[in-house]
C-alpha cells in the first residue's frame, strides 16, 4: 500500500532533523522559555516528531484501507 505524500515528506523530515550536523551543532546553551538545555529541547522535540510520524502513517493507512474495504 502506498504511503500518503505528506507522510513520505514527514519521514524525510524525521531523518533530516535527526541527522543534520548543523542542527546538532547549533544546539548550545539554555532555552529561555523552558530553562532546559537546547540540546535536550532538540532531542525531545525530534524524538516526539519522529514518534508522531509513525503513528500518523499507521492511522492514515488504516483509514485508507478501511475506506477501500
Amino acid at each position: 500500500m502506498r504511503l500518503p505524500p505528506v507522510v513520505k515528506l514527514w519521514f524525510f523530515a524525521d531523518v533530516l532533523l535527526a541527522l543534520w550536523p548543523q542542527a546538532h551543532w547549533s544546539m548550545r546553551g539554555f532555552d529561555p522559555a523552558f530553562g532546559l538545555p537546547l540540546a535536550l529541547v532538540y532531542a525531545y522535540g525530534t524524538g516526539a516528531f519522529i514518534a508522531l510520524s509513525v503513528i500518523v502513517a499507521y492511522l492514515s493507512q488504516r483509514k485508507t484501507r478501511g475506506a477501500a474495504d
Partner: protein
Amino acid sequence: MALLVTYGALALFFAIVVFILQRSYVADRNFTDFAVAGRSFGGFYQAMAFLNTGLPGFVFLGTFGFIAREGVVGIGFSTLLAAIVMYLMADRVWTWGEKYNLRTQPDLMALRFDSNAVRLVAASLGIFGLMPWMVLGMQSLGAVFYALSLGQLSFSMAVLLGVVVMALRQIWTIRMGMRGIIISDLFQGTVAYLLGSVLIVGLIVWLYADGATLHALPARKLAFPGPDTPKPLLFFSLTLLPLLAYLCWPDLFIRLYTGSGVESVKRSSAYLGPIGLVFVMSLAYLALLASNRADVLANPDAGWFTLAMAAGGPLVLALAGVTVFAASMGNIDATVQSIGAQVANDVIGAIRREPLGERGLMITSQIVMTITTTVAAVIASLPLPALFTIGLFAIQVMVQLSVPLYFGIFTRAGNKQGAVAGMIGGVATVCVLQITWPLGIPWAYGLTTGALGLIVNLFIFVVAHLLVPRTEAERERLDALFGQESMHPPVTSQIMEHHS
C-alpha cells in the same frame, strides 16, 4: 533481610516467566513454527519483542554510564528511527516472507540476490555480530547480581551466578523456539520498559527533590560535539550507524516475519514510537541529571543501581534489578534463537548437498542453541576486559549487511557479485581501521570505522551494478519478485527449494 528482598524479587520474576512459558507451551509443528512462531503474533506482542531485543539490559548500564560521563552525545534516536524503517519494510518483507516461507534474514538476502554465497556471507556477519553481545548480555546479568548482592558476593561470583541463571532460562528458549520468546517478551518487555519508565520518572522526581539541577552540569555535557572539536561528526555517526545497524541485527529483523500480517507489523511500529520515546528519553534525562553526583560518577555504569539504592533502599534496588534482568533476558533469548536458526538454515542447510528437512532443521537449531549457550556461558565467566571493544567492533562489521539488505528490499539495484564483494570489502576496511581507531576516526571528522566501511561497501555494490550486465532471466525474476508479473521465478525456486 535486604538480600531476601533483592534476590527474592529476581527469583519471583524468574518464576513468573517460567510459569508463563509452561502454561503457554505448544509443540512446534515445523521449522517455520520454531523460527518465526508460525507468523501469528499481533502488534503489541511484536512491539514488546522488538524492544526486548533492541534495548537489552546493557541500556540501563552502559548507555546510562556513557551519557553520565559524556553528556547529550550519548542520546540516541536510532530506536525511534528504526520504527520508521520497520514500517517502510513491512509490506515487502512480510509478503516475501509469507510467500517464499522465509525464516531468517539470510533467507531473504539469498532470495533477493538469488545466491547462496550472499546467504553464507550474510549469516556469517550476523552470527559474528551476535555472539559478543550474547556474552556481554550474560555479563550484564552479572552486574545485576553483583549490585543486588549488597556486597555479599564478589563480582566474579555474581557473573557466574548470572551466567548459570541465564543458561537455565535457555532450556525454555531451546524447547519452545520463537513462540516462547515472544510470549515471554510481552511480560519481560512490560516490566523492563513500562515499569522501567515509571521507575525512571520516580527517580527523576526524587533527584529534583534532592536538589539536582541541569544548570550545574558542565557545558560540554549539554552540547553535541561541534565544528570546533576534533570529532564534529561523532553524534551524526553515533546516530546513523545504530540506525542502519538496527534492522541488520538478525534477531530483530525476523520480527518482520513473526507478525500475523503486514498490518500487525505496522501497528507494532506505531506502538514503538511512543513507548520508545518515553523510555529512551527519560532514561537519558535521568542519566544527565544524575551525572553531577559523586556516587554516580564514581562508577557511571552502575549508576542505575546506585541511584535506586540511594532513593529507596533494597526495595527500589530490587525493582531496578528486575528491570535490567527482564531486558537482558529478552535479548539473550532472541540472540540464542537467532544463532541457532541461522546456523541450521543458512550455514549447515546451505552447505549440505541434501537439504535438511523440517525436523532436521529444528533439531540442528536446538543442538546449536545448546552449544552456543554453553560456549557463551564459559566465555562470560572468564575475565575478558576487551569484550566491550569486541562488541563495538562486531556492530561495525554487522552494519555492512545494510547495503545489500536495504538496497535489496527497497530497490531492484545491485547483483550478487556486488553484494558479496561489497560486504567483504566493507568488513576488510573495518578490520584494518578498527585496530588503530576503535571509536571515531579523527582524520574522518569522528566517523566510525563502520561508516568508512559502508562507503567502500556501497562503492563496490554500485560499481558491480554498473559493470555486470543483468540477464533477461534475472530481470524477469526480479519483476516477479517485486510483484510486476505473476510468473513464479524459476531460479528463485532453486535457491529456496529446501524450504518447500
